[in-house]
C-alpha cells in the first residue's frame, strides 16, 4: 500500500526533483531547530495559527506571480491589484450595507462585494495580459506600470486614507477560525492552491502555459493561442491577487492603498526560491508552497527572539535563497542545473 503511494506519479515527481527535496529538508530542519530552541513558544497551537493567518496574504499573491513567471513573464502588479480590489470591495460593502443594515442585507453586500473584487481583479489582470501579449511590452515594464496605475487608482478612490468600519460579519467569517482552530485565510489559501494545482496538473491550460513559457514560437506554431493564454494567465494572477486583497481586507478589517507594499519583491523571492525559472517553462506549485512556508516559519521563528532584530530577516531570506540555489547548483546530479541551463537571454 505505502509502496504504491511512494511510487505513485506525483510522489515520484517530487522525490525526483532534488530541489523540492532540498526545500522540504530545509523546512523540516528549521521547524526542528525552532522547536528545539524555543519549544514553549514554537510548539504552541497559537504560533501555528498566527502563521496560518499571515502567509496566505502573500502566498496568494505569490501564486499569481508563479503562473506568470512560468510563461517567462512576471507580475509586479499583484500588490496593486490586491489593494485596488479590496478597496473597491470595501467601498461597495459599506455602501450596500451601511451601519445598521439587516443580516440578510449584510450577507448580500458581502457576497456582491467579493464577486466585484474578483471581477475587478480579473479585469486588471486582463489589462496586464493584453499589454504583454498584444502590445508586446516586456512584462516587467507592463506590470511595474500597472502597479503604479492600480495603486494610483486606489489612492484616488480613498485619498490615501484607509477604508474601514466594514460590517463585522465580514471579518468574523474571513478572519475567523473554522471550528475555532483553523484560521479561514489558510483555508482560502489551501483552496487556491488546490485550484491552481488542478489547473496546472489536470487541465490543458496548465500544460499549455508551461509550453508557452518554454518556447513561445513553437507554441504559436503548434496552434496554441498564445495571446489568449497570456491574457488568461495574467487574468488568473489578477484573480488570485484580488483574493489576497480580500484576505487582507479581513485580516486588517480595512483596506488601504499601501498595504503590503513590501510584498512585491517578497513574492518574486518566494517564487524563485520555489524553483520557478524566471525564464519560464518550469517550476512546481509544490516548491512555491514550500517556499512560502519556509519564509513564514523563519520570520515567525525570528520574532520569538526579542534580541534578534527584524532587520536580520532580509539577511536570512537572502541567505536562504543563495544557499539553496548554490546547493542545487553544486549537486551536479540535480535537475536544476539543466532547468536553469537555458541561456538567460531567452527570457
Amino acid at each position, binding site marked *: 500500500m505505502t509502496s504504491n503511494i511512494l511510487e505513485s506519479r506525483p510522489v515520484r515527481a517530487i522525490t525526483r526533483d532534488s530541489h523540492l527535496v532540498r526545500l522540504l529538508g530545509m523546512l523540516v530542519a528549521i521547524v526542528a531547530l525552532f522547536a528545539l530552541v524555543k519549544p514553549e513558544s514554537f510548539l504552541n497551537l497559537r504560533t501555528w495559527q498566527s502563521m496560518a493567518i499571515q502567509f496566505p496574504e502573500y502566498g496568494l499573491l505569490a501564486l499569481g506571480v508563479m503562473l506568470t513567471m512560468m510563461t517567462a513573464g512576471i507580475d509586479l502588479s499583484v500588490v496593486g491589484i490586491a489593494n485596488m480590489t479590496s478597496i473597491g470591495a470595501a467601498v461597495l460593502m459599506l455602501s450596500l450595507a451601511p451601519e445598521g443594515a439587516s443580516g440578510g442585507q449584510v450577507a448580500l453586500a458581502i457576497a456582491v462585494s467579493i464577486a466585484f473584487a474578483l471581477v475587478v481583479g480579473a479585469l486588471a489582470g486582463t489589462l496586464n495580459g493584453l499589454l504583454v501579449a498584444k502590445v508586446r511590452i516586456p512584462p516587467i515594464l507592463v506590470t511595474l506600470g500597472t502597479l503604479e496605475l492600480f495603486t494610483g487608482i486606489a489612492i484616488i478612490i480613498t485619498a490615501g486614507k484607509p477604508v474601514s468600519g466594514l460590517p463585522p460579519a465580514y471579518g468574523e467569517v474571513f478572519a475567523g477560525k473554522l471550528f475555532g482552530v483553523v484560521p479561514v485565510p489558510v483555508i482560502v489559501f489551501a483552496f487556491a492552491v488546490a485550484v491552481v494545482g488542478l489547473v496546472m496538473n489536470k487541465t490543458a491550460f496548465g500544460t499549455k502555459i508551461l509550453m508557452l513559457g518554454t518556447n513561445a514560437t513553437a507554441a504559436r506554431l503548434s496552434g496554441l493561442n498564445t495571446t489568449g493564454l497570456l491574457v488568461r494567465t495574467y487574468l488568473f494572477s489578477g484573480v488570485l491577487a484580488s483574493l489576497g486583497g480580500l484576505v487582507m481586507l479581513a485580516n486588517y478589517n480595512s483596506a*488601504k492603498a*499601501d498595504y503590503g507594499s513590501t510584498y512585491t519583491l517578497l513574492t518574486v523571492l518566494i517564487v524563485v526560491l520555489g524553483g520557478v525559472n524566471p525564464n519560464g517553462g518550469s517550476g512546481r506549485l509544490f516548491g512555491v508552497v514550500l517556499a512560502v512556508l519556509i519564509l513564514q516559519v523563519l520570520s515567525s521563528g525570528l520574532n520569538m527572539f526579542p534580541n534578534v532584530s527584524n532587520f536580520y530577516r532580509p539577511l536570512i531570506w537572502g541567505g536562504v535563497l543563495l544557499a539553496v540555489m548554490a546547493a542545487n547548483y553544486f549537486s551536479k546530479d540535480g535537475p536544476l542545473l539543466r532547468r536553469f541551463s537555458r541561456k538567460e537571454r531567452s527570457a
Partner: protein
Amino acid sequence: AGSPAPSGSAPADGDFTIAVVPKDATNPWFVRMEEGVKKYAADTGLNVFQKGPAETDATMQAQVIQDLIAQGVDAIAVVPVDPGALETVLKEAMDAGIVVVTHEGASQQNTMYDIEAFNNADYGAFIMDNLAEAMGGEGLYTTMVGHVTNASHNEWADGGVAHQAEAYPNMTLLEAEPRVESQDDGEVAYQTAKELLKKYPDLKGIMGTSSFDAPGVARAIEELGLKGKVFTAGTGMPAANKQILVDGSVSALTLWDPADAGYAMAELARKILAGEEIGDTVDLKVKGYEAMKFAEGSDKVLEGNGWVVINKDNVDSFGF
C-alpha cells in the same frame, strides 16, 4: 479565546514581559524610542523590549504582533503604522488576555489606552504657529505629508490648516496643491519643493509634517535663492537638523521625545498589568507625561503635553 500563554499564568507577581512595537527602526525616531524602553527595563528590571517590523509597513507590523501574541507576552505597546490595519490583530491580542496600549493611535478601537504626547490637532496648530511666525502671519502656503496614506501626518496638517483659518486670516492655503507628498524621503521633499516654488511664485510657506520634510524643503529654499522669502516648519530631531536651525533656513522645529513616549507606554502597560487604576492625571513617571488627561469625550485616549520646540538657541541642549 485563549489564555495568556505560559509565562502569563500568574503575572501578578510583577514579572511581566512587555513588548513595544514601533513602526520601524531605521528612523532615528524609533531608535531614540528604544533608548527609553531600555531605560525602563533597566529601571524596573522587567523584561521589556522593542521589536518592530523591518520596514514601515502595516502588514509587517501586524505580523510582528501576531507572533508576539503567539509567544504569550503580557503586554504589547504599539505605535501603529496604520490603526485601521491593526484592529483585528489587536482585538485578538486582547481576547488572548494581553494588555494592549498604543501611542499615536488616537483612532484605534482595539486598545485599552492610547497615549498621545499631545493632541494631534493642537500639534498641527503649533507647527502652524511656527510657520506663521516665520511668514509674518501672511501669505500663501501649502502642507506636505510623508505619504497621503499616513494618518497622523494628515491629522497634523488638517489641524494646522484649521488653526490657520482661525488665527491667521491673512494666510491662504494654496488651493491648487493643498497637500503634497514627500514620500518620507528628503530627496523627494527637496525636488517637490523646488517644483512647487517654480510653479507658484507666490508661495511663501510650506508646512512639513514628516521629519524629512522641513530639511528637504530648506535645501530647496536655499538653492533657489529664496532664503528669507520662503519659510518652512515641521517636525524634526535636534541633531539631524542642527545646521538648518543654526543657519536660519528653518526657524523652529517641533518634536516630542520618543524615548519618553516609549518609557511612558511601558509604564502604562505595567500599571494595567499590576491592576492599578488608570484615571485622569495618571502619572507615567516621565516629564510631560506626569499628569495625563483623557481627551475630550474619550475614556481611552490619554493626552500629555510632551512636545517641545527646538530652535537655534536650544538645539544643543537635548543630547540626541
